């Protein structure tokens, strides 16, 4: 397992490690990628499309069931 630099070291290497750790800590903090925006914020950012630009639901051809939420009701009715 990788060792954290805070653990005990001594001598020239320890000084070197301390300096490098400090430099990396500073750099990494300032360069960390921005966190992903929260879901709600994301939702708000979704570009709104004008009603006229929205794609219209294609008209169903004859015999094709398009009203899916009503299917269960229909099946129950048929079975009665």
């Amino acid at each position, binding site marked *: 397992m990788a060792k954290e630099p805070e653990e005990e070291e001594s001598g020239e290497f320890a000084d070197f490690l301390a*300096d*490098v750790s400090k430099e990396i800590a500073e750099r*990494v903090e300032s360069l960390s*990628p921005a966190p992903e925006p929260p879901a709600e914020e994301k939702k708000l950012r979704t570009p709104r499309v004008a009603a006229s630009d929205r794609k219209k639901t294609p008209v169903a051809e004859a015999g094709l069931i398009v009203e899916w939420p009503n299917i269960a009701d229909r099946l129950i009715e048929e079975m009665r």
Partner: protein
Amino acid sequence: MSVVNYGTREITCKIVYYGPGRSGKTTNLQHVYSQLPEERKGKMVSLATETDRTLFFDFLPLDLGTISGFATRFQLYTVPGQVYYAATRKLVLQGVDGVVFVADSQSRQLAENIESLQDLHANLADEGFDPRSIPLVMQYNKRDLPASEIMPVEELDETLNFRGVPHYAGAALSGKGVFETLRSISTLVLSRLSAPATKGS
């Protein structure tokens, strides 16, 4: 070489010790290696000839552990100083993040220092680096030799350090200046850490 990888949470830095033959590049790495705590000692790969000259290159991986959530590794390389190993020097420079130029302080080695510095610049340019902006630190080594044999640091600096980069007096055999030099180049390299283009890249 990518210095920081936010996807794998890794920081890897490649530092190359460059300089003329017998200037003390391998000795620098040997001192760093000797100071590593046992649990951090990996393998220092050193390919030397029977006369102890570096034949190909030295490689010292430094695993610094997890720092700020990033697995941090430094890779230290030396190049063979002798003129006829030009191809190897070029190869080792590939993907370099920072260079330590180890100059020999002896007066009679000045021409070799200049030639090696020119060679470094040419090879960096060939590899697509800008020799004027790549992180560089100068080390004037062998300061432990008699004063009559070595040039003053100021004079060396005036002749070799035209970029005005940080410079250190060294005596790598005893370890003097070795870690100061390493700290300095590491800081320069790390200060160039760049932000990721996209998250996870």
